[in-house]
């Protein structure tokens, strides 16, 4: 064990940094610098985790844990646990934290101190979600991430920002509160069964509710997570929130907040209620598939670039849902990887749309055309990320998508095949996005290409995109152990041998 509470430091450092920024709110010209410093330190902290020689400990295979009593009366503990999955998501969070600050460097002129505070606050909460192993603590972080996001969208957003912010908040909190009820129910049930009132995930996992009750409880958890992911048809909040949010808000929203939903489904909902989860898997499978198709179709019609990217998010998350619904080592590894990859790719696309918005003050596709002429570097990056987003092999999304698709195919050949066809649907809207902006006669005014700061942002993300696409093995190795552990825990591998099915 390491005596320094590194995990807590990782969780709370951004918040501390944010408060520090807030303390300097009278000096707007330093806010972003302090924030960048804080986020960079956070990144270093997370990277230091990667450098440490960590080995799984104990039966649950945590790489690192912190556990302290908190509210003894209710068996609530302050316990954080790190495994490969959380580690990789922490990396994503820390990276996007830095990127988000860089991306808002010039965009946010109004009350920057508060802005960066909110940004860092969200980062803290997301870190907490990825690390908490006590469900009470988890819930705390889970809801907490909504609050700064509310302000980020509501204060620094675009025209319909207040509507979007409220919608985002109410959708998510509604799910959250129902989950809280289910959580309390599970907690009480566990207490009654064992006499030990505890919110520890590992403890609650031992509970075996009656099937009907389990269904209800799982339903509530699923609802909360499905809203966050979001799974069709609960996605209503997402396009508005994304469209109205400032760039950094979109980055955090798409890059991190959606991931918390998928992560929670993976880490919490399904392992807690394997029976109910197993029975509802077909539903998830169908919803995931429908979500991809639906989002791809709706994305095609969009006139606002940001909205288009937002719908593409729904589609990509649908793939993760598919992966979770099949629940084997291929799809789960793929799903985790997809979380990371989608985080990077979509964040990059949002950043680029944000850059266009900064330059031309419009996001309407019809206003653009022939950008390549005046902004070749920008356009090259744009093309790269668009290709990543449509699953071009060699770029990051392909690996994760393919793992998921192969896994789905192995379990359900028909659904897998249908899911494969959606790569065409994705292509259609991504190419529309690329074509309407980069190609054709030049419509907008001539404009400067990337600044050095923008270049750095995009280069970082592009390197991540390529690295993950060509050499995803480190992440896959990291994730493999925890994924196996999850599968063993939930124990619902009942896949028929697809090969024999095909043979008939």
């Amino acid at each position: 064990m390491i005596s320094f509470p590194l995990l807590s430091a990782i969780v709370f450092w951004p918040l501390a940094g944010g408060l520090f920024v807030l303390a300097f709110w009278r000096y707007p010209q330093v806010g972003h610098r302090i924030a960048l410093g804080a986020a960079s330190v956070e990144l270093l902290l997370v990277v230091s985790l990667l450098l440490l020689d960590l080995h799984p400990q104990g039966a649950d295979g945590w790489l690192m844990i912190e556990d302290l009593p908190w509210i003894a009366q209710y068996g609530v503990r302050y316990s954080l646990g790190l495994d490969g999955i959380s580690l990789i998501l922490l990396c994503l969070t820390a990276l996007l934290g830095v990127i988000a600050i860089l991306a808002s460097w010039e965009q946010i002129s109004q009350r920057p101190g508060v802005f960066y505070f909110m940004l860092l606050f969200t980062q803290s909460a997301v870190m907490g979600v990825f690390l908490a192993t006590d469900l009470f603590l988890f819930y705390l972080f889970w809801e907490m991430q909504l609050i700064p996001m509310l302000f980020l969208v509501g204060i620094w957003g675009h025209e319909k920002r207040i509507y979007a912010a409220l919608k985002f908040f109410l959708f998510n909190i509604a799910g959250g509160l129902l989950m809280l009820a289910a959580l309390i129910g599970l907690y009480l049930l566990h207490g009654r069964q064992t006499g030990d009132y505890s919110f520890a995930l590992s403890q609650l996992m031992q509970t075996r509710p009656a099937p009907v009750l389990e269904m209800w409880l799982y339903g509530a958890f699923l609802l909360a997570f499905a809203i966050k992911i979001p799974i069709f048809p609960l996605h209503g909040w997402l396009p508005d929130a994304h469209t109205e949010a400032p760039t950094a808000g979109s980055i955090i929203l798409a890059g991190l907040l959606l991931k918390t939903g998928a992560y929670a489904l993976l880490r919490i909902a399904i392992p807690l209620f394997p029976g109910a989860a197993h029975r509802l898997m077909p539903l998830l499978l169908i919803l995931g598939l429908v979500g991809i198709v639906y989002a791809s179709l709706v994305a095609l019609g969009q006139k606002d670039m940001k909205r288009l990217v937002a719908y593409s998010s729904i589609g990509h998350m649908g793939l993760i849902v598919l992966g979770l619904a099949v629940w084997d080592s291929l799809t789960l590894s793929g799903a985790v990887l997809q979380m990371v990859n989608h985080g990077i790719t979509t964040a990059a696309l949002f950043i680029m749309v944000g850059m266009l918005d900064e330059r031309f003050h419009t996001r309407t596709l019809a206003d653009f055309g022939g950008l390549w002429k005046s902004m070749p570097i920008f356009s090259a990056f744009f093309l790269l990320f668009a290709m990543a987003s449509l699953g071009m092999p060699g770029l990051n999304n392909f690996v994760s998508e393919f793992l998921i698709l192969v896994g789905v195919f192995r379990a359900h050949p028909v659904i897998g095949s249908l899911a494969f066809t959606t790569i065409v649907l994705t292509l259609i809207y991504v190419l529309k996005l690329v074509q309407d902006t980069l190609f054709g006669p030049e419509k907008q005014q001539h404009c400067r290409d990337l600044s050095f700061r923008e270049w750095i942002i995009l280069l970082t993300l592009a390197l991540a995109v390529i690295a993950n696409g060509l050499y995803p093995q480190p992440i896959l190795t990291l994730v493999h152990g925890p994924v196996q552990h999850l599968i063993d825990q939930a124990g619902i591998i009942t896949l028929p041998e697809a090969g024999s099915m095909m043979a008939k």
Partner: protein
Amino acid sequence: MQTEWLALLPLIILAAGGSVIFGIGAFWHQVPTALLFGLAVFTCLASGGTALLFPNVASNLSGLLAMDAYSSFYTVLFTIITLITLLLSYQYARQRAFAGDEFLGIILFASAGMVLIAASCHWLFFFLGLEMVSISLYVLIAIRRGDGPGIEAALKYFVMGAVASAFVVFGIAMLYGATGTLVIMKSLDLAGHPDNRFLLLFGLSLILVGLCFKISLVPFHLWTPDVYQGAPAPITAFLATGTKVALLSMFVRLALYGGDGAGALFAPALWTMASLTMVVGNITALAQTRVKRLLAYSSIAQMGYMMMALLAFKHTGVAAVIFYSVVYAFMDLGAFGTVGLLSPKESDRDVIADYQGLGYAQPGKAALLTLCLFSLAGLPATAGFIGKFMLFRAALEANLVGLALIGILTAIISLYFYLNIVVVLYMRPAEKKPTSAITGNEASLACFLIALIIFWLGLFPSSILSLIEKIVA
């Protein structure tokens, strides 16, 4: 004798402090307000201090008052509420020229009445406490001279309060007639008086109606919005927190003493009222355009949540209610208090639209208001979250699933109107230059205390929880 003295000391200090302030005011015409204010603050501190120093000294004074850990806890709570009210209202009252001896003295008397309610184990003392609080508040509400809404609020509160008191007192008479004792615990002994069962229940229902009226459960809530709106904001804070917490302490006592026997018969009625209160309170609040009225409906709804947990008194409901009433007190003190602090001199800042841009013009106070609203909404990391969690936990533990679900659904609805204020504070551009708000160290101290307590209870509730477990046991 010695111990009984000590036990009564907090109460005596409060009453004496009030009397001294009255006395000074009567004989010293040009008395500096600061002196009286200091005296009042000192009285509160002394009373609370003695309650802290000598808790648990005498459990029962001649069967009339129980100065045990339970009442000591409440005494400390009431003195803190009073103290914060004083801090919040000092500058406010000075600006509006009612910071005289009567204002400060009456507040102290009201707080003595609250202590009395919490400590009473005899109906007479309960009645006296109730009347002390009520009569003091009739005056306090109308203390701002020439203030139309204030007068109207006082009048309404007075008429309704008097009728409710009559209900309570007649109920006590019925109980007494049925059981022959005024000791609360014995008078609730349904099994011991099978012949007078009807009379006892009749009396008890009269009392409950009176009490439900005081804590404004639906359908007895109609006075609440008017009174909260009309009263000066710091007084509303005091009114909304002090009386309700005091009466909730009485409810807890009743539940503990008579919950199993007579209480079980009232459970369906209380269930209905609790659900109605949550639904009506939260939904009506949606339509409000005035902050104080909105907060009034929110406070109605909060009472519904507490009533829900109270129904689970056999489980952890009692602890939950006590904890939540503490939390509730500070949330509403903070909310109404900041409304007062943000108000211009002419009238309270009431219309929600007037809060536009205040988040930046008055960052500290707006932040506190936001914090209190978040806490009222039950968002995490605030005391309100832990409180709501405990309430729902208790309800679910007692298998009140329907009630808990209603509670959760209405809580979702409630988020909208709480957020709406936050939206106005921060997200809508300020159209006009906001007027200056009340400043002063007292107010800042109060704000700081409230924020501290809300965070403290939200993040580290353990200590309070163990204390509550101790006093309930």
